């Protein structure tokens, strides 16, 4: 196919340093590689305008429309039949339709692994910046199921290592407030945490800065953030949204668009996972990495079930 491609950017817009930006990176890569024309669409009122934008794109002969906005799933399902020749893609949910590709990520699974690693690390003796207390921290941007999916996965992973572990959770109430992120991370470090996982886009940059300044550790998210503060980002929970968007575009260009299918970017597919830990390998005992690998194998095999807030709601251990 050679009709142009449109991608609708979710709330928060480009520059959130997280979801939208990662997806956009894959989008641009896909466009560049296939030579297709492609446009990313932002809106100040993306929730309410979603259906109009999607229809406008299809009416104007765009061949593939991806929407990063969660709220667009429902209208997409409704309007896709009107445009059988257009390919559609939606994320984090499954929508019915021959021409809709649904993409699911296993953020909870990847976060579980991060939780396992962090829980192991936090009581390790002889590592600079690590204290004996079994205390971890998570700084999510806002309270919403899409974000809490990470949080709950992380907690579950940590508890699987040590049921008595304490995981402090503090919402920053913003995706773009690094000052707040820094202060929150400091508060957690002072409270005995030595590893803080952020799920907070631009706010998380402050978390990483705080880890670096105080000699503790952060865990990055979405992309490989290990290099932002080498040695102080324990690992990053990478979510290959960019791979997903890029592959969807390539498949579309090759007339192999997976319409009607659900693409999973979970652990088995390497859609989520931890980084190579380029800068922290040396301080992490090998057995921990083995434990992480074991957990990964368990999840893939179905022996370990990780709670998914976005489809199961909140579990009892996290309200």
């Amino acid at each position, binding site marked *: 196919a050679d009709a142009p491609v*449109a991608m609708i950017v979710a*709330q928060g*817009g480009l520059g959130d340093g997280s979801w939208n930006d990662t997806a956009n990176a894959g989008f641009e890569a896909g466009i560049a590689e296939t030579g297709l024309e492609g*446009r*990313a*669409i*932002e*809106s*100040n*009122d*993306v*929730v*309410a*305008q979603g*259906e*109009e*934008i999607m*229809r*406008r*794109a299809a*009416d*104007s002969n*765009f061949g593939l429309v991806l929407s990063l906005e*969660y*709220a667009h799933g*429902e209208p997409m399902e409704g*309007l896709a039949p*009107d445009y059988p020749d257009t390919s559609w893609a939606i994320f*984090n*949910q499954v929508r019915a339709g021959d021409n809709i590709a649904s993409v699911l990520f296993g953020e909870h699974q990847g976060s579980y692994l991060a939780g396992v690693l962090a829980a192991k690390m936090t009581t390790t003796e002889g590592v600079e910046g690590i204290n004996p207390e079994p205390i971890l921290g998570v700084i999510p941007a*806002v*309270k*919403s*199921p*899409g974000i809490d*999916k990470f949080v709950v996965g992380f907690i579950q992973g940590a508890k699987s290592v040590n049921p008595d572990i304490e995981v402090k959770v503090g919402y920053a109430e913003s995706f773009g407030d690094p000052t707040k992120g820094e202060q929150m991370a400091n508060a957690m470090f002072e409270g005995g945490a030595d590893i803080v996982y952020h799920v907070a886009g631009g706010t998380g940059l402050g978390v990483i800065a705080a880890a670096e300044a105080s000699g503790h550790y952060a865990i990055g998210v979405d992309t490989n953030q290990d290099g932002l503060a080498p040695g102080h980002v324990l690992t990053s929970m990478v979510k290959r949204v960019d791979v997903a968007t890029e592959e969807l575009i390539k498949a579309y260009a090759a007339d192999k668009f997976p319409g009607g299918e659900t693409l999973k970017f979970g652990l088995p597919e390497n859609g989520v996972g931890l980084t190579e830990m380029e800068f922290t390998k040396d301080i992490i005992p090998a057995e921990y990495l083995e434990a992480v690998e074991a957990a990964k194998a368990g999840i893939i095999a179905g022996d370990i079930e990780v709670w998914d*807030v*976005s*489809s199961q*709601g909140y579990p009892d251990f996290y309200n």
Partner: protein
Amino acid sequence: MSNWLDRGLGFAVPLLIALLVSALVLLAIGENPLDTFSLMLTEGFGSPRRLASTLSAATPLLFTAVGTAICFRAGVFNVGVDGAFLIGGLAAVVAGFSLPAELGWSLVPICLAVGALFGAAWLFIPGWLLARLEVDEVVSTLMLNFIAVAITGYLVNGPFLSRQSGNNVTPPVHEAAELSRLMPPGTLHSGFLLALAVLVAYAFWTRRTPAGLEGAWVGLNRRFSRVVGVSVQRTIILAMVLSGIVGGLGGAAHGLGQLHRFTDGFSAGYGFTGMAVALLAHNSPLGMLIGAILFGALASAGTTIQLFSDIPLDLVNIIQGIVMIFAVIELGRIGIRRRVKA
């Protein structure tokens, strides 16, 4: 005659300044401003479908503009319609999914009424505080907006969170509670007709009701109003409550007609854009209709031109910001430094 000219200029000047500045910006990045503007025009009004999309974007602005104008006329600088929109919207949506679906067609009026009621109650607070305690309404309503964002944000992630969604949204309202679409498949819904009805009611209220006349007098001269036996306090409270009703109705219509649920980011600053519309239009009903459609077109076309050009959304913000800054040139009458002791 000159009055009409004035009003026309009231619109034209800020718009021209905005277009001029954005033309310069476009030139600076090597885009042809004329091409861009004509693309915007096509995207805003070029076909019935585009027009419907524009009207759809204009619908919430019509509500918030009228809600604002009701207060401005009475000399009350209420900037809190956005809060009423949120509160009313959430209340209507909650009614729309929690009341029994068996209520059928009557769900719509009930939910609208609930939205209006909550909006009214919300703005009654600053109205009462202003009338009785002379608490500056600009600050009180501004603060209440933030509080409304917090409360609705909390509720939509807590008590009213949908279990089925990966997002901060409530469950959808019953199908019977949805407002019907006017031009399927476009999203323009019957809330637009409701907005027009509200606009007509506003026009009627201003000219054909005793309270409407009183509102204008209180806005023009509070001492005079007292002399002719008008209760200034009551008029102020009434203006706030009516404003809340309209704002709440707007939120209800948006929830029931556009989104079918309440979500984070429910109001894209509609209250503030509506305020600019009311100021631009000098509170005149026709002017507000035109103004809301213009801003609706800006929002709708500003988004879809990205499909056909490299013009980023920031241009829309630049235009809108400039129009707001220059919106009230000469409209000195609604100063915020006047407080004739009531």
